[in-house]
């Protein structure tokens, strides 16, 4: 990658936005992008240029129900706090207050059987993988997440970090399906893996499989589920074992 050639850099930025820059080259570019504000401006410029390719697409009025659904979703306790704050979500008491209220409401209002019956039939493995696909930046992130921060986040979903899960490189909240949960990425000897904790769900037994280029296992907890997602099928049992060994219910 010729970083000293502005033309080459600019074309790479264009190919990145277009999506034709792939594989290791794309990963290297994204690492560079995180560190270079000028490169981010080049990318934004290409987003604007390539958006002109949609100029020939005729606008279509979406049905009114779409806005109604958006309004309804924005009114839910989990999203009603408005646009994301610029402070770290994990430092935000408002987030945790909302989270706790939402979780309490779900448990108190829906309770036992209704929740169980409503969630057992869903394919949570696919939902979790879909979320991983929709948030690709989480797998690329290079956050420094301390063990204390991860332990604290887990304790808020009634879990205890008891072993070594490896270095966490991303920690955030997530909405999977209609459930709010905890999303973190760990760097393990078997490669990077995504772990998603969804409190308040109940599944009868472990489920595992592959979908969308990922391997996923969904494990039952006492009051929730843990989803483990890896890119390689061989890595899944390794990471799953680490998770089982390192996380326990409070």
């Amino acid at each position, binding site marked *: 990658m010729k970083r000293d050639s502005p033309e080459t850099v600019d074309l790479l930025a264009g*190919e990145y936005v277009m999506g034709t820059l792939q594989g290791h080259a794309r990963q290297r570019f994204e690492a560079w992008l995180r560190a270079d504000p000028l490169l981010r401006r080049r990318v*934004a410029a290409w987003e604007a240029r390539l958006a*002109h390719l949609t100029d020939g697409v005729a*606008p279509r009025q979406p*049905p009114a129900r779409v806005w109604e659904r958006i309004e309804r979703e924005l009114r839910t306790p989990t999203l009603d706090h408005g*646009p994301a704050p610029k402070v770290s979500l994990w430092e935000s008491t408002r987030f945790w207050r909302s989270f706790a209220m939402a979780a309490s409401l779900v448990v108190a209002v829906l309770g036992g059987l209704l929740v169980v019956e409503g969630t057992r039939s869903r394919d949570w493995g696919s939902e979790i993988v879909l979320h991983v696909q929709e948030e690709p930046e989480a797998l690329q992130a290079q956050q420094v997440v301390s063990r204390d921060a991860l332990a604290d986040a887990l304790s808020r979903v009634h879990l205890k970090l008891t072993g070594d899960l490896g270095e966490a490189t991303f920690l955030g909240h997530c909405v999977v399906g209609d459930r709010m949960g905890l999303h973190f990425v760990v760097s393990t000897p078997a490669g990077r893996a995504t772990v998603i904790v969804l409190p308040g769900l109940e599944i009868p037994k472990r489920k595992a499989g592959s979908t969308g280029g990922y391997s996923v296992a969904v494990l039952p907890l006492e009051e929730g589920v843990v989803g483990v997602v890896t890119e390689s099928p061989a890595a899944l049992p390794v990471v799953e074992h680490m998770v089982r060994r390192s996380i326990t219910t409070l």
Partner: protein
Amino acid sequence: VKLTDDQEDADHLLQASARGDRAAFARLYRLAAPKLFGVLVRIVRREDWAEEILQEVFVSAWQHAAEYSASRGRAMPWLIQIARNRALDRWRHARHEVADPDADLEAIADDAPPAETRLAQERDARRLHDCLARLGARQRECLQRAYFEGLSHSQLAERLEVPVGSVKTWIRRGMLVLKECLES
């Protein structure tokens, strides 16, 4: 690139949304949703999916509006890129659910005005048409399929039955022509 009034409005409305202004966010939806919905239908070829993704895009825009204000360019390209990325993800994830994508596309295309009429009526579309006219037909197709179908160089080469090297050259040349033309 000369900005249209709509783009400037979208910038202001998204910035206001970042401050928690719900009314501004509703106006942003009214302004941007038809364009985004058209793009989404063009990519996923199913209106029900396009509706779901449009909903996701605006919920995400509300949640991440502050990030836009801090670090991004114009609002409409930002929203279009979010919509495109999500649509391509959905399309890659579940394209097997569409039995006959080409048939769907034709059916959807039939609902729209004829391409020639649309191009004559819409200034932006006319400019794009003029820019793309500088490319050969295969190069134009290559660029548009990469954008709307999210295909890799090798996938494009396979579908267009040309060497990968030709695809790479066409994409790069197409992007350079687009850049030069739009900024002239």
